[in-house]
């Protein structure tokens, strides 16, 4: 695992997504991309130039976009349906439920610029409810990769997975946390740092911040375990139970409302089988004020320092 240097080179995971998608599409003629006008925002201009017939742009019509994706899957295609995460998940939620989840179609939903990546554009453009919405549906694995290597690995996994899924991508820069050739395993957490006092669980953009927090905690004499939990559903219950019994406290950290997201999914496992004190960091059930993505994460108590402080406070609740 690479060390989480704050000064490390930052990458936009969308580039890794399209890089892998183009590679896969070159080998598999059935792979198509479906989008809603925003070819550039989904970084699909290269795909369009290489495979012009296989970029299906339905215009600004997200419900139609997901329905068309389901029909393409029925016709034997492997559609990657790409749109800004809030409009893909919020606008087309019933299409995702009926046409993808319930009909069990092979549609890969790719939410671009999820979380609060659109910062100053405001709450309409934030996608901080999508874990909760999609996680409530059967048959649609929910995956939030933490860096470009995990993103590429998740895309490769999705292309061969027989069924639908939701890939939640950001455009906020993150450093490399995994190594080249990383393989994504659905439902498996990654142990990024071992520790015995407390476990920090995160995914997406927050994994990087959480690793920095763990380093700060080490300097304060606290040994923190860090789990990357890209797979929100199915979730790695074994890793959560082990964390609970071995470290006795769990802090979750997500770019999502604390109602129904990663923290809730972890808490469901904890209350069912291994009750320990928990702290759930995230957006505290409000529409965000005006600010950039990173600024908002800081404002909502998810700067590395604040995460470390919350972990220390949590230690005080350990029994």
């Amino acid at each position, binding site marked *: 695992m690479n060390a989480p240097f704050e000064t490390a080179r930052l990458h936009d995971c969308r580039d890794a997504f399209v890089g892998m998608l183009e590679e896969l599409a070159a080998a598999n003629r059935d792979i198509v991309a479906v989008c809603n*006008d*925003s*070819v*550039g*925002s989904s970084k699909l201009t290269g795909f369009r130039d290489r495979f012009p017939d296989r970029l299906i*742009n*339905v*215009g*600004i*019509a997200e*419900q*139609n976009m997901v329905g068309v994706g389901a029909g393409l899957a029925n016709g034997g295609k492997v559609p990657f349906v790409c749109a800004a995460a*809030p*409009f893909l998940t*919020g*606008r087309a939620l019933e299409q995702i439920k009926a046409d993808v989840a319930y009909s069990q179609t092979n549609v890969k939903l790719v939410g671009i610029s999820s979380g609060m990546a*659109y910062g*100053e*554009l*405001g709450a*309409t*453009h934030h996608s901080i409810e999508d874990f909760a919405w999609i996680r409530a549906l059967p048959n649609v694995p929910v995956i939030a990769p933490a860096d470009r290597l995990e993103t590429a690995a998740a895309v490769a996994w999705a292309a061969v997975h027989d069924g639908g899924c939701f890939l939640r991508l950001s455009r906020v820069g993150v450093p490399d946390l995994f190594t080249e050739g990383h393989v994504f395993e659905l439902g498996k957490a990654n142990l990024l740092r071992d520790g015995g006092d407390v476990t920090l669980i995160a995914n997406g953009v927050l994994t990087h911040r959480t690793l920095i927090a763990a380093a700060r905690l080490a300097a304060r004499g606290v040994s923190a375990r860090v789990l990357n939990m890209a797979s929100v559903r199915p979730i790695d219950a074994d890793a959560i139970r082990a964390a609970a019994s071995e470290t006795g406290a769990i802090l979750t950290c997500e770019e999502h409302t604390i109602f129904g997201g990663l923290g809730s999914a972890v808490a469901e496992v904890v209350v069912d089988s291994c009750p320990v004190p928990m702290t759930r960091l995230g957006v505290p059930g409000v529409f965000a*004020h*005006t*600010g*950039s993505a990173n*600024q908002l994460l800081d404002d909502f108590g998810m700067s590395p320092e604040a995460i470390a402080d919350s972990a220390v406070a949590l230690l005080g609740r350990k029994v």
Partner: protein
Amino acid sequence: MDSQELRFVASRIRRRDLQAVFEAGAGHVGGEMSVIDILTCLYFNELSVDPAAPLDPERDRLVLSKGHTALALYVVLAERGFLPRDEISTFLKHRSRLNGHPNRVYLPGVETNTGPLGHGLPVAVGMAKAAKLDDRSWRTFVIVGDGEMQEGSNWEAIMAAAQFRLDNLTLIIDHNRLQQGARLSETNDLAPFRPKLEAFGWHVEDIDGHDHSQICHAVSTATGTPGKPKCVVANTNKGHGISFMSDNVAWHHKVPDESQYRQAMAELMETGE
């Protein structure tokens, strides 16, 4: 206000908008330049609204459904006294009331929060229906983008408005022929709008959306058909008033560099005086 004065105000609004985009390093300048003449005519000539009583039940309602051009609305609202003019400099700044899409909770004068395309018209239908239910004379106006008309929700609302005989509702389509990634004609071509809206039972006016006297006439009660909702197809140019932006899809949300900014300002100055 006569057309000459409206032209002068619109030019001032364009310059303030451009300056804010340049300073914030973000915005949707193309669609702002295309909608400013429409907003100016509505706010300075047609709408009965009062900054001192922004929630007066008898006010006219204006919904900017193409919410990505919020900045244009903010500048117009500032010119009309709904917020201090110098607050425009906070656009997109940390904790500002002026985020990238209009928010009625933050800012009096905004009727409904928009940003996801295809929301304004259904809400406007509800507003117009409320006025009918209470037999009130206030009117409802809604501005949509032409690309935005690809959203199915608009067509559901178009059917409802005709069924409800909402002749107190005016839909203005900012028909600049461009959407985010390409021209409408290359994406999902809806034009021409007139026959489609007429087929759905609407009264339609087709105008030059940068000609102030045509805009004022079309949105006024001088045009229309009793019992029918009205659609004004405003033929506009994205980036209007700035030569290198005009009708150029690259300028959907691009930000001018220093020299482009200077040139754009100079061009707006020249036409505004």
